[in-house]
């Protein structure tokens, strides 16, 4: 049973009297206890999906979906109080930029404490409850690898280095004991050891508490070791989605292949000092989106049919949308 199930999510942003499709029929589902990676270049709309799920899309943007459900409950037309309850108790989001996602005028300790849902606070009187909140905060800070909890709790966001801020964001997500953690690029800007620690922590949470994790990143290396399944996004379209090991072994979409080829660690057959293969060009801006398959202009395999949006095709639980997938060569 899918915890988070999104089918044909379309997000349109008004621009000069017209609407731009920033997300075009995106499909994504996260099962219970699963680690799903959501991969794509910057500008591919990863963070937009995150904000769509969290409900922080500006009112004048148009959002439509065949299905966007949380545990079978539609997220699109929730009552305000129910939405708050779900966001408070079940879904936790680690945002991309800790410095701007933390209130600059409130200490970090207070900010972590206020995200603890009241059902997780022990005690009857306010001083007992405050002590309980403080205990939980300190424990969680230790868990994310901050030992100087006193200093961090007293500090304001601008006094933090980037990676500590990121850990605090993570701690804020953890105190609520959510069913799913949506991590929007949580390891960005961290050095490798810290990154490994955070990844290990997330993996451990996933294994011991069976927290589902939606890991949004462009860092393939970081993800590939921990993710069970992966969804690849290009320019607001889901390109390919399936089990991590299948995708790594045999990508069907040219974009996935380019993505995996560009990471040297995935290649054993690479001769020394050879150039890494990559796709020419860069991701188009939202104002100049190509029609049909948006990879079209950059795709080495593009043909006439690519001006139409390709449908979704399945091979077992591996889905892709391409007119000329890679497996056809091999036959």
């Amino acid at each position, binding site marked *: 049973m899918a915890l988070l199930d999104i089918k044909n999510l379309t997000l349109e942003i008004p621009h000069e009297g017209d609407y731009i499709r920033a997300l075009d029929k995106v499909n994504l589902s996260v099962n219970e206890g699963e680690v799903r990676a959501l991969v794509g270049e910057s500008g591919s709309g990863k963070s937009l999906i995150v*904000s769509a799920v*969290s*409900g*922080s899309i500006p009112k004048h943007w148009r959002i439509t979906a065949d299905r966007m459900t949380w545990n079978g409950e539609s997220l699109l037309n929730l009552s305000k109080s129910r*939405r*708050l*309850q*779900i*966001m*408070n*108790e079940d*879904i*936790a*989001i680690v*945002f991309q*930029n800790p410095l*701007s*996602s*933390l*209130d*600059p*005028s*409130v*200490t970090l300790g207070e900010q972590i404490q*206020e*995200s603890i*849902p009241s059902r997780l606070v022990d005690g009857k009187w306010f001083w007992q409850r405050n002590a309980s909140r403080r205990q939980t905060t300190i424990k969680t800070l230790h868990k994310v690898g*901050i030992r*100087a909890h006193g*200093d*961090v709790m*007293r*500090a*304001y966001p*601008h*006094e*933090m*280095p980037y990676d*500590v801020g990121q850990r605090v964001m993570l701690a*804020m997500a953890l105190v*609520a004991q959510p069913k799913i953690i949506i991590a929007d690029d949580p390891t960005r800007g961290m050095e490798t050891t810290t990154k490994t620690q955070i990844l290990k922590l997330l993996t451990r949470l996933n294994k011991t508490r069976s927290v589902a994790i939606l890991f949004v990143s462009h860092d393939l290396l970081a993800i590939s070791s921990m993710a069970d399944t992966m969804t690849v996004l290009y320019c607001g379209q889901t390109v390919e989605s399936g089990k991590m090991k299948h995708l790594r072994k045999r990508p069907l979409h040219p974009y996935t292949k380019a993505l995996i080829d560009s990471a040297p660690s995935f290649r054993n057959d690479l001769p020394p000092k050879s150039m890494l293969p990559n796709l020419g060009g860069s991701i188009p801006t939202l104002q100049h989106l190509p029609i049909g398959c948006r990879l079209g202009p950059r795709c080495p395999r593009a043909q006439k049919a690519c001006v139409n949006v390709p449908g979704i095709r399945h091979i077992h639980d591996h889905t892709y949308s391409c007119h000329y997938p890679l497996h056809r060569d091999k036959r």
Partner: protein
Amino acid sequence: MMISFFRYGTLFVLTLFSLVSLSFLLAHLFPGDLLTNLSGVAPKDEKERQLLATLWAVDQSVFFRFFRYCSLIFSGEWGVSISSGLPLYDEIRRTLPATIELSFYSAVVAVVIGVPIGCLAGLKSYTKLDYTINAVAIVNYSLPVFWLGLAFILVFSLQLNWLPLSGRISLLFDIPTVTGFILIDILLSNSLNKGEAIANAIAHLAMPVLAVSLISGAALVRLLRRSVIDILDKPYIASARSRGLSSSRIFFDHVLRNALLPILPLLAIQITTLMTNAIIVETLFSWPGIGDWLLQAIYQGDYTAIRMGMLVVAALIVSLTIFVDILNRLVDPRKRMPTNATT
């Protein structure tokens, strides 16, 4: 933190110094006898002249004279008014509290009116309510204070006869001056009917305070509205929402403080406007404050009074502005030195 206090202290002292020098310069620039301009007394005979000349060091060099001028000012020897012959220190001591009282109540009323309405307009931005509030605020802000005061007099005193026309308190009440602040004086006095006296003083206060505070309040509404709209767009508000915090919690814990912080320095600028408006309003309502007093001095060409009155009002505004700056530094964590955890 100590360093910035020290810096503000230096700024304060330097500004005061230049104000004092300016007033010293004015005494030399005003027409007439220098000794009269400084002391306010036209000496009747040579003996008195000699006495005053030694006190104000008129025959000495300019530097020594300036030094003497400063020391006299700081010891409260401000000379006498040319027109009334009363010591200026006592005159200002009598009139300044009335002005401070009027401005202070106006500031409080402006905040009490402005903050909730500004927040409301910001939260309901781009709705009919917001447009209405904005329109009213703009109209209010653009009204000249003397016109507003006259309109109030016309409506509330002359037509409806609800509020008294002028003065601080009805002559029936005999309140001895202790602090100069009428409400405090009433509480300190041993008058029999304090309740009535206070009600009467408040009725006298109502119109001038309202006239000044409506204009400052309108400015506050507009500043705060903009600030709240800006803050609501910030990612940390989206992040707080995504953590499932209730709207009231988000507003009081995250929006309000962050919205007030950036407008605090702008309020320091508003203080000047507020004081100026209060001074203008005093003349309308015959409020015995420093504005009324200064205007009389200007009419009568009372140079000593003009000089000292300007110095005192300027010093007051400078100290208030620096005080708000320091306050801003104290409450805004971003302006503090990073002393906590830098792991």
